[in-house]
């Protein structure tokens, strides 16, 4: 019996299922990056407070810490496994590939998480209950544990883009998969962003302390301005380096919207340079409302678009350039004894090979052709495109507007020959091409 290990399909109408992961992921990035950045900031402030005997820094750290508990350790820690869950629902085989390659890396990260979660409560609630030297040491270890979580997850998310070299395919080794050419630039790009975010959040806290202590509020706002500028610079520098380490298919996708992206980044950079400059020169002008709005600007204009771009640039793959977004294994990985599924799919078809296709759709007939086409379209296309006439997320209606069945078929044939680097090279039996084309044509995009 020929079977490929595909799972049931989860599809959210009009949007697809990948956007759920996108939303959860974007929220998580904001909170998790802030958390690591704040851990580094705490170490810096504690160091200064201890060495320079600045006891007035402690109430600021406590206030920041309380904010962090909710911001990062409620929202961040729930959305962390949340990405995992939603990604599993949307791309089960993609997540499975990551898990089976990196389970021990994730387990190691878990050890750091435990230290971080217990540590943050100790750091915040013991700030007035332990001596300052002990507190300083606690902040150092907390910062290292937080950076440790980044150090461990970064190789996994870098591998999602690509392993960086061919070594992994031959050895199957987690080290070769983890330490690709994009891992370290990616790591420092995120460290820069984390530092910047710690300053951006720090401005909300420092500006909210103006009534209690104006002088301290202004001093800390200035410091947060400098920290954010340094973080922003590191982010920009490593972003350029990171882009140079990405595969060709990523650049092919990037080229589609290069001008708009560059324009967006220039505008964002100018806006934030101005914002940080105001924090340094005229800290009085920053208030908690403005500071909170700027977090929203980062979330929507920076992170959401950035994450969407990163996800698009991975196309047509979802992990390691050997699993397509539509959950099909597209190449051999001899180091892991993994075989490409493309040849058998071309020969026998998805309906025949997928164990969750009901018996009535296993063989295409005149009666079931449209239903089979719909299921095939969902299986092959819906991870990236919404299918309906009213679809919202990368809708096919925009790509197949006004096309008849033969026109659609010709696109499917071209895809089967690998005509588009950012689309899966998915060759299907003629009957399945025909069923998909008939279904799309019936929608009259």
């Amino acid at each position, binding site marked *: 019996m020929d079977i490929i290990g595909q799972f049931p399909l989860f599809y959210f109408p009009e949007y697809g299922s990948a956007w759920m992961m996108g939303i959860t992921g974007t929220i998580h990035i904001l909170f998790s990056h802030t958390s690591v950045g704040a851990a580094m900031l705490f170490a810096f402030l504690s160091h200064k407070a201890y060495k320079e005997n600045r006891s007035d820094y402690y109430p600021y750290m406590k206030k920041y810490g309380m904010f962090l508990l909710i911001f990062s350790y409620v929202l961040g820690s729930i959305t962390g*496994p949340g990405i995992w869950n939603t990604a599993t*629902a949307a791309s089960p085989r993609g997540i*499975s590939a990551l898990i089976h390659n990196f389970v*021990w890396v994730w387990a190691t990260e878990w050890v750091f998480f435990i230290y971080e979660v*217990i540590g943050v409560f100790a750091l915040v609630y*013991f700030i007035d209950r332990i001596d300052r030297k002990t507190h300083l040491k606690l902040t150092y270890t907390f910062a290292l544990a937080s950076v*440790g979580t980044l150090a461990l997850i970064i190789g996994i998310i870098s591998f999602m883009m690509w392993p960086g070299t061919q070594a992994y395919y031959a050895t199957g080794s987690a080290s070769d998969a983890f330490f690709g050419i994009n891992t370290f630039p990616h790591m420092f790009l995120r460290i820069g962003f984390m530092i910047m975010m710690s300053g951006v959040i720090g401005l909300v806290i420092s500006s909210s302390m103006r009534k209690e202590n104006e002088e301290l509020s202004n001093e800390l706002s200035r410091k947060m301005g400098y920290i954010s500028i340094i973080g922003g610079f590191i982010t920009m520098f490593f972003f350029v380096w990171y882009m140079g380490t990405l595969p060709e298919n990523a650049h092919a996708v990037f080229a589609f919207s290069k001008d708009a992206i560059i324009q967006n980044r220039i505008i964002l950079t100018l806006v934030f340079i101005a914002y940080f400059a105001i924090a340094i020169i005229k800290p009085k002008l920053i208030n908690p409302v403005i500071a909170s709005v700027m977090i929203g600007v980062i979330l929507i204009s920076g992170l959401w678009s950035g994450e969407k771009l990163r996800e698009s640039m991975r196309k047509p793959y979802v992990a390691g350039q050997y699993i397509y977004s539509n959950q099909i294994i597209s190449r051999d*990985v001899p180091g892991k004894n993994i075989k490409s599924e493309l040849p058998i799919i071309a020969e026998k078809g998805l309906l025949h090979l997928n*164990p*969750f296709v009901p018996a009535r759709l296993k063989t295409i007939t005149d009666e079931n052709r449209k239903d089979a086409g719909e299921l095939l379209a969902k299986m092959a296309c819906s991870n990236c495109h919404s299918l309906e006439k009213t679809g919202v997320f990368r809708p096919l209606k925009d790509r197949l507007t006004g096309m008849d069945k033969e026109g659609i078929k010709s696109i499917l044939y071209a895809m089967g020959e690998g005509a588009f680097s950012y689309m899966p090279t998915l060759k299907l039996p003629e009957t399945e091409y025909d069923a998909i084309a008939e279904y799309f044509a019936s929608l009259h995009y």
Partner: protein
Amino acid sequence: MDATVLLALRDPAGVPFYPIVFQILYILTWALHAAFVLLSLGAMGLSLYGSAKGNQDKHWSILTPHLIQTGKISVSILIVLGVAPLLFTQVIYDPNWYVTNTLSGMWIFIFVYTMIVGYCMYYWYYYAHKAQRTGHSLIGFVSFGILVFAGILMHSFAVTSIMPHDWMNMYAPNGIVNTSGWTFNMDIIRLAFMVSLSIPVVGIFLQNYSRFLSTRKDFDASFISYSAKLGTNFAVVGLLISAVLFVLWMLQIKYLFHPVSIATIIGVLVLLAMAKTNRNSYYTTLVLVVVALLISTMRELIRFDIMSALGYSIYDYPMNLEIPSIVMFLSTFLIMGFVGVAYLLTMAWKVGKREGVFDGSKDVVVTKLGQATLYIMIAWMAIYFAWGIATLFKNIL
């Protein structure tokens, strides 16, 4: 689902280590996770009673904020501890994990945001209670309800994952494919048993709480005695309820006379005797840990048997040994994990044991543990970068 399909759903990359190790780690970490789920549920639930009583009762005015704080911290810890069993289960039980997530994709999404809303509201409850704002009890009740709903969803995922016979029917009833992700299943007795455990867990927690604070001069002896008695009552009544529900559950699935089931019942009886006499609740807690491990083993046994009967044995999973990363995990877990957590818990213990400021710099154990944690973490970072650079050089030069 027959064996051919289930075996095809395994990841082609294989498992990177012996499957039994993942199975043991799953049992261990699920028990840890469950302990905090039950503690948070019990502490939150009891805090609502205290909150409704108001500040008139002198004992509850002390106990309630402590219960709220316990619930709050426990939720954070249960989330982080929950990551591990989630990780280990999907390495060896791919069919169960991935099929459940896709069949219940919509509920998965709702679960994430339910947790967020419930936990944020719980913080609101914490602050509202602290400030004694009007309606704080209501906020507490709503947040408790939302978090319980999240727990029910998690229960549904667990139940769906052990129903392989029905997966095809859930996905394509009468041959009509349903990709909506709204699959939801419940096993009331199993759920009732799991939830009931929160009563004895919070009872034994109260016994520990009372014992821990008994050396503090700023806590009245009558309060110490009151919280110990309250704990004993909760532990005894809760254990009796849990024992009945456990027997019903075992009868339902025909496992009552299985050695693990019998060992669990004996464990509960020992726990009952120890909780009733309350000679030393710290020892009672150790037995509770053993019982938690037995319950976790029972859950795993049920799943293992269901899958084995269908021809899916985790022990036959193809293996691609991956040595460097398991060495990293074991050394991090055993060295950094134990030293680091010992450092934090020792500090927390000593801070809690005294009034005023604890001078850790004069405490030899805390200082040495702190120093060791710091050096281990620095060494870890150095090894990480050396490993990464060496790997990169090997592969690109």
